[in-house]
């Protein structure tokens, strides 16, 4: 672990046994940096969910032995980043078409739904640089939640998108770097 005034960097060995310890390290850092202005329990719970899902994502999907987690605390926000050089993100849209990073120039920008549970539609919008921004569109409630027809693979993304104020993915084709970024804004600046 390395630390400067605003950020810690943690190398995570992408093993499932290491998740609880790494999670606690991250949460301890945030509590310590918040100091005399402790973050609200609800916010800490959301941060915990996202860190856990980022670490789980590293174990399940990156295919790399190491990921780097950066936890930053500013006056206005908590910023969580997970980086690795593993497999780029692959999403399967609701039309079953695969969207694979790096995106081809001709398909940018792109806006597509990838999952819905009957009430929330998890969508992705990509910009000119290929950065993917996840967002939720609320649907009119259906009689039978579609949660049961499309399971699990998107739960992690759904949790991270709904818990964060902003959730995004970046891929650098030149280096192969993948980066997930989750941001939580404070309603009032940290003292």
């Amino acid at each position, binding site marked *: 672990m390395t630390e400067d005034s605003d950020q810690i960097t943690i190398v995570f060995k992408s093993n*499932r*046994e290491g*998740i*609880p310890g790494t999670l606690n390290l991250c949460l301890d850092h945030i509590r310590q940096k918040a100091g005399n202005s402790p973050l609200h329990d*609800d916010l800490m*719970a959301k941060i*915990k*969910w996202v860190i*856990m*899902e980022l670490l*789980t994502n590293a*174990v*399940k999907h990156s295919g790399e032995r190491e990921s780097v987690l950066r936890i930053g605390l500013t006056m206005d926000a908590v910023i969580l980043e997970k980086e690795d050089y593993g497999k780029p993100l692959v999403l399967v849209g609701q039309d079953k078409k695969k969207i694979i990073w790096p995106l081809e120039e001709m398909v940018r920008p792109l806006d597509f739904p990838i999952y819905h*549970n*009957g*009430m*929330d539609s998890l969508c992705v919008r990509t910009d000119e640089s290929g950065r993917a921004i996840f967002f939720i569109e609320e649907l009119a409630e259906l009689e039978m*939640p579609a*949660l*049961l027809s499309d*399971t*699990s*693979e998107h*739960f*992690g993304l*759904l*949790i991270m998108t*709904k*818990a964060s104020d902003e959730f995004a993915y970046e891929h650098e084709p030149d280096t192969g770097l993948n980066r997930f970024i989750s941001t939580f804004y404070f309603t009032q600046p940290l003292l």
Partner: protein
Amino acid sequence: MILKVEEANRVVQATILPQEASLSNADAFKEEMITIIGKGVRLVIVSFENVNYIDSSFLGSLVVALKYAMPRNVDIYLVSLKPDVKNLLTLIRMDKVFRIFNDYEEALGTLS
């Protein structure tokens, strides 16, 4: 062993033993649930009284168990969820597909 199981009158009380319901035990939980459901019970009441945290992998296993149970006319109820766990289920709308009760007694009270 992920679940502590007690059965009476085809109603199973299954208490999750670990404090973390996560990737490390999601598959084992799914297998144990499928075994229980396959025994011809009518209701499985899953207690989260020990669980401090649940992740997407475990939630996925829970949904797989429900999908296995539904065509077999087996209900799955969830009880004793701590606030963090319940809030996460609510966040991704799983409270719409599972019946959630405060504790075993409340869940058993719904049976005729």
